[in-house]
Every structure is written in C-alpha cells, then in structure tokens.
C-alpha cells in the first residue's frame, strides 16, 4: 500500500494518528488569529508553515527509520509529546485568537 513494505505500515499509522491532531490544532491557531483579516489566507500559510515543519520532519523521520529497519521509538515518542502538548495547550491559544478576531 502506498508503495511501502507492509512492515512499515504500523509506523505509518501511528505517526499519522499522532501527527494529524497536531497539524489540525496548529492550523486552528493560525486560523483563529487570521479569520477576520483581509487576504488572511496568505498570512495564515506564512504563520502555520513554520509550526508544521517539526511535525513533518518527525513523521517522515520515523517512516524513514522504519524503512531502514532502525528504531522508531524516539520519533514516535516525540510525536506523542507534541500531540499531548497540542491537545492540552492549543485550545487556549485558539480561544485567545478568536477573542482577538472578534474584537477586530
């Protein structure tokens, strides 16, 4: 599936399961900050892209390690901690962003 050997599929699934909430929540922070702005779309991309990159590096790093037969625990644990941080802290940032945009 996806041209990957079946041994790497569990890693793929885990990294996707952990990474997707992080990306969604980070995107929501950016969206909350820019929702009221004109041409906010471009600004949103600029804001959110740097925040995404560590997650993408970790996810692809984990998959690369799985393909090479190396240990993936480090990457997966890192993704898990980012997911935990995002789920607990991002809502506050989203609330703050929405309040700011409502006042605008």
């Amino acid at each position: 599936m996806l041209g990957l050997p079946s041994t790497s599929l569990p890693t793929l699934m885990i990294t996707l399961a952990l990474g997707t909430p992080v990306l969604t929540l980070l995107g929501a922070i950016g969206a909350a900050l820019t929702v009221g702005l004109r041409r906010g779309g471009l600004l949103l991309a600029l804001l959110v892209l740097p925040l995404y990159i560590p997650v993408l590096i970790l996810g692809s790093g984990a998959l690369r390690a799985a393909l090479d037969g190396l240990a993936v625990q480090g990457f997966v644990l890192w993704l898990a901690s980012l997911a935990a941080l995002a789920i607990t802290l991002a809502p506050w940032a989203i609330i703050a962003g929405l309040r700011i945009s409502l006042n605008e």
Partner: protein
Amino acid sequence: MSWAWFHRLASPPRFYGLAGRLLPWLGVAAAVLLIVGMVWGLAFAPPDYQQGNSVRILYIHVPAAMLAQSCYVLLAIAGVVSLVWKIKLADVALHSAAPIGASMTALALVTGAIWGKPTWGAWWVWDARLTSMLILLFLYAGLIALGQAISNRDSAAKACAVLAIVGVVNVPIIKYSVVWWSTLHQGATFTLTEKPAMPAEMWLPLALTVPGFYLFFGCVLLLRMRTELLRREGRSQWAQAALGLSIDSRKTR
C-alpha cells in the same frame, strides 16, 4: 516581595529616560567589544588545522545565531508579560525586537552558508540545525507580518503575543537538535560542565564578539523602543515634553 519597581519601570516616561541614559554606555561597550573581537578574530587568531582561515567566520556566525534564538525567547517573554500583566511596554519591546531578531537570523543563515561552502562543499544541507534556523526566520517573518496586518494596536499586540508564545516551542528544538539527531553540523563546542573542544587562542575572540553582539542588540533595541514610545504616546504630556526637548536640541545644533 514588592513588584513596585517592575511596574514603575513599565511606565513609559521612566523607561524612556532610563533607556536614554543607558544608551551611550551600551553603544560604546558594544563598539569596543565588536571591533576588538573582530580584528582579533580576523588577524590574530590562528587558522584551524582542517578548515584553514574560513574558521574566522565563526566569530560572527555564532553570536548571530545565539542572538537569533535569544531574541525569540525575549519575544515570547514579552508576549507573556503583555498578555498576563497587560503592560503596554512589553508590546513595544516585542514590536521593536522582532526586526532585529529577524536580521540576526538571516545573518546567521547567510554566514553559515558562506562558511559551509568551503568546509562541507555545499551552500545548504537540510540537516536539523539549519532547517530549524530557517523555520525560525519564517516565524519572525510571520510575526512581523501579523503585527502589520492588524490595524487595531491592542489586537495586534495580543495576536503577536499569542503567536510568539506558540512559536517559542521551536527554540528548544533548535537548541537540542544537535544533540538528538546526528547531523552534519558539529556538536556543541561549549558546555557548562566540560572543557571546550577548542583551544583558548581560538575561542577568546568569540568571548568578545558574543557579548559585543548582545550589547549591540540591547543598544539598538532601546533606540527603537524610545522612538516607538514617542510615536505611540505622542499626545501625552511627557512625550510632548521629550519631543520638544529633542526638537529644540536639534535646532540649536
């Protein structure tokens, strides 16, 4: 413990006066350290056994990179102070420091690339530390862009504070990336507990340029903050008095 001194410092006229008195000292100290450090590094420090004379770029690349990260941490702290204690001076600091930090990040990236070409044979590699520095540059750019996109100053202050705090997670990733991933960029030369891997005659100029850069940053930041304070508080009594003084002193010159 009394926090009165903190709140007194946060009063714009008091800060304006204090910054004005501090500026010349910072400027002179920075100039001395930078000139001596750079001349020493360029002319008197020994060349590296493997890298030859290109190692002299170290003396400007390292302080720029350190400043780039420290400045972002400063932005995040200013963001917290601005959001939690609603001190307007913190937003002035954030607004003023962001361009300086961005220019330092760009300088670190450019000098790093110039250094990398003779050393590693490549202008750029996608290793952890370089990529994280590039991400930091984009974080600065986004912060500055967001601050300019929002017209209401209070909303802009809050939005930039939130973004700075969210982005500060990236700074420890940069700092520890050299430890956690084995990469092309060399490991930490200086730790707090072990002897440095570089001989003294090579890192001594660095001991001058690093404080020099930081003092320069302080000097330029205070310069920017003073002007920004005058711009924002222009109609207030203290600002009118300060403006009057400055305009008069320029006329008599």
